[in-house]
């Protein structure tokens, strides 16, 4: 025993009605320590952060911080004593500027600090987190990944002693993960203790000394990082095929986990189902897409790869109709549909499955699904519902639960199921594996492979190069708002430029 631990939690239990989200979790963080927490989606990791951060009151157990019992101390008081946290799904103050988001933390902790000094301190943090260019913009304008950065920056503005990071690495490409690891390492000199919940295994491997695996709310395994990661039990419940696989993308043409791809007949002479030509688009004065050409033929699976900020999500928004291109054309079946609103495009058979999920929380799983097939005959609707349930048995089990009560992976299944209910001709999947446990990603991609076998046309926007290449017939790689590389999955996989684009540009 070396001195007082920074934080000690004993026998934490959190019950929601009859559901036990956290069950007898005990943990200890000593000064200078970084603890990693991993586990499948829905294992109760975010609940644990909520309990430590003070947002949730435990049903049982006690929490001692710096030698003081803080079990009954509220969230704001804990924050003032130096416990900072981030939210897995970012919750910035949307109608305030990015700088004001940080100033809020700063002013609440040091109420009488001179304004200039506070602003300087906040700008230094923004600089460090790569958000300084957006300091004066409303947080609402930030895309999801930058909101995650804002979560970290805002927690840092507190000047915390203990920092709880909830999946801040999700959706980052390799070079950005390296940056994140650099940031976390540099924090070790300022922050006394860190708890990191993460599915990006590189972050866990390189930052955490100790690892805790949570499954069904219980501590499943605990110990030094290498030992826990090497355990077969942990591989079985969490790591899936990522176990033992090389972490660098596109390092080698990995053997596809899914059943071997069968080439399907694609009529190359027919009008493409979707064709973009010379599309330019952006937000206000910020130009994001700079002349994109892309085609999807009926029956094809097309993947769009690229680093964050390359314009992938903007491209998906153009295809959904929620963003009007400033130049160029969008054709569906050869007809010009540029500038048509989303509901028109969706009536033409284009469906979206977006990052961030957007499930209606007040509706049940089944209602969420049925809603997507409004105006369809009952028998047909029931039939489609059965097909979705066959694809995702998890959803069938939880048909009466509220949509947002499920884990991240299950919500993503629901989002896919909802897109399928409309029986679209083309589904655009926008980073559906974001923030999912490796084993859950395996299951989602198995489902996509099954859909592929049924002949569904798909456009997959993805961060994970290997998985995308395994699934797709053709691939586009984006860089700086343009298509930098395209071709068949096989050709792109072997192209040295792919590796260069992914690893060489962002650092």
């Amino acid at each position: 025993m070396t001195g007082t631990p920074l934080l000690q939690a004993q026998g934490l239990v959190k019950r929601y009605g009859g559901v036990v989200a956290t069950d007898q979790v005990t943990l200890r963080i000593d000064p200078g320590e970084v603890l990693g927490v991993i586990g499948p989606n829905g294992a109760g990791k975010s609940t644990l952060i909520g309990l430590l951060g003070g947002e949730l009151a435990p049903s049982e157990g006690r929490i001692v911080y710096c030698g003081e019992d803080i079990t009954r101390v509220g969230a704001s008081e804990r924050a003032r004593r130096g416990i900072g946290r981030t939210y897995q799904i970012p919750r910035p103050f949307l109608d305030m500027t990015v700088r004001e988001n940080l100033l809020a933390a700063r002013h609440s902790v040091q109420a009488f600090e001179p304004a200039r000094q506070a602003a300087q301190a906040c700008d230094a943090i923004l600089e460090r987190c790569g958000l300084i260019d957006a300091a004066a913009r409303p947080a609402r304008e930030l895309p999801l990944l930058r909101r995650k950065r804002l979560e970290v920056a805002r927690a840092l503005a507190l000047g915390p002693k203990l920092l709880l990071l909830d999946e801040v690495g999700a959706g980052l490409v390799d070079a950005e993960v390296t940056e994140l690891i650099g940031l976390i390492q540099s924090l070790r000199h300022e922050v006394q203790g860190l708890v990191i919940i993460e599915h990006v295994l590189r972050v866990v491997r390189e930052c955490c000394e100790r690892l805790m695996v949570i499954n069904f709310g219980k501590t499943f395994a605990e110990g030094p990082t290498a030992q826990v990661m090497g355990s077969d039990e942990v591989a079985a419940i969490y790591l899936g095929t990522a176990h033992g696989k090389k972490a660098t993308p596109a390092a080698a043409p990995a053997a596809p986990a899914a059943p071997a791809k069968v080439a399907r007949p694609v009529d190359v002479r027919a009008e493409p189902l979707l064709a973009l030509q010379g599309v330019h688009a952006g937000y206000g004065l910020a130009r994001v897409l700079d002349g994109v050409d892309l085609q999807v033929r009926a029956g094809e699976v097309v993947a769009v790869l690229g680093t964050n900020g390359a314009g992938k999500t903007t491209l998906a928004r153009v295809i959904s109709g929620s963003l009007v291109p400033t130049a160029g054309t969008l054709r569906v079946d050869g007809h010009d549909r540029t500038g048509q609103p989303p509901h028109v495009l969706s009536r033409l058979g284009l469906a979206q499955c977006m990052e961030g999920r957007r499930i209606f929380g007040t509706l049940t799983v089944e209602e969420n699904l049925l809603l997507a097939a409004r105006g369809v005959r009952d028998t047909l609707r029931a039939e489609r519902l059965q097909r979705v349930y066959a694809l995702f048995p998890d959803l069938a089990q939880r048909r009466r639960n509220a949509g947002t009560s499920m884990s991240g992976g299950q919500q993503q299944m629901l989002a896919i199921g909802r897109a399928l209910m409309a029986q679209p001709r083309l589904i655009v999947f926008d980073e559906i594996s974001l923030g999912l446990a490796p084993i859950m990603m395996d299951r989602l991609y198995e489902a996509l492979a099954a859909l592929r076998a049924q002949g569904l046309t798909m456009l997959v926007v993805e961060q994970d190069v290997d998985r995308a290449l395994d699934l797709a017939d053709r691939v586009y790689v984006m860089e700086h708002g343009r298509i930098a590389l395209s071709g068949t999955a096989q050709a792109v996989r072997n192209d040295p430029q792919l590796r260069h684009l992914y690893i060489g540009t962002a650092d």
Partner: protein
Amino acid sequence: MAPPSTSALRAPAMTARPWWPELWRTLIPAALLLLALMAPVMSDYALEIGFRLLLLVALAEAWNLMAGYGGLVSLGTASFVGVGAYVLTGAVNKAGLHWALALPLGGLAGALLALVVSRAVFRLRGLYFTVGTLALAEALRLFMVNFAPFGGATGLFLAVDPPGLQGLFGVALSVLVVTTVVMEVATRSRFSILLRTVRDDEDAAAQVGVRPFRIKLITFMLASFLMGLAGAAQGLKLGAIEPYGMFGMNWTVTVLSVVVIGGQGLRAGPVVGAVFVVALAELLADWPAVHLAITGVILIAVIRFAPQGLVGLGLALLRRRDFGSGGAR
């Protein structure tokens, strides 16, 4: 994490600061001064309308502080107006205070009422808070109607003569000056940052160390002080007050429509809204039924087509002219 070179959202070259907030800041004191100078030469009709307008602006500002900046949509305006009026009358009649001293007492009574009920109403959030304040207002009105020591349904008479129209105009102007000072401090200081965090996300605010209850309480008390002050001024003008009028839903609804029409969370909103509402009421004074119907239609139109009110609509147009329109829907 250094900014990646491929960052999708580069800050647009927005070097020129918008000029309208600065203009607005100099406009407020100038307008208040002008009103003070004009008072001696204004007609009785103008003074009468002016009194109503200034009081309505003050009330709307107070309500806007809660709803627009703090996310606390209250339907309890009438309670605080009523308490202010009754306390003024009581203090003048029973304690023999000069009305000028009784006016701030009305405000303090409003703030005190806010403090007393805060524990109860802050247990409720969002819409439930709104309904809670409505229940408070109705309960208080029924109490006042039935409680004989406060005059019951007949109400109270002010024992002294109210000041003349000039004096009343001055009172309303002073109320507005106090309101403006409070609003300037509350919406331009670091307090406003804390307040807006509570509006945007109360839980996330707590996680960064903000104490939501305290912030909401301060806001509620400030707004209620201003409402009580305005109520006291109204009581002074009427000379005879009764619960149906002073605690009536009319106050609540008028103030709400002023802010919704003018623009929530915007400093200029209440002024523009109040001018609009008072002008409309005067134009249609002879056709009360038509007036109600038209107000309803306007409210629906504003909520549907200009959720940020007339001021928000104007600002959006200005911004579009200055920076060009984005492609985003």
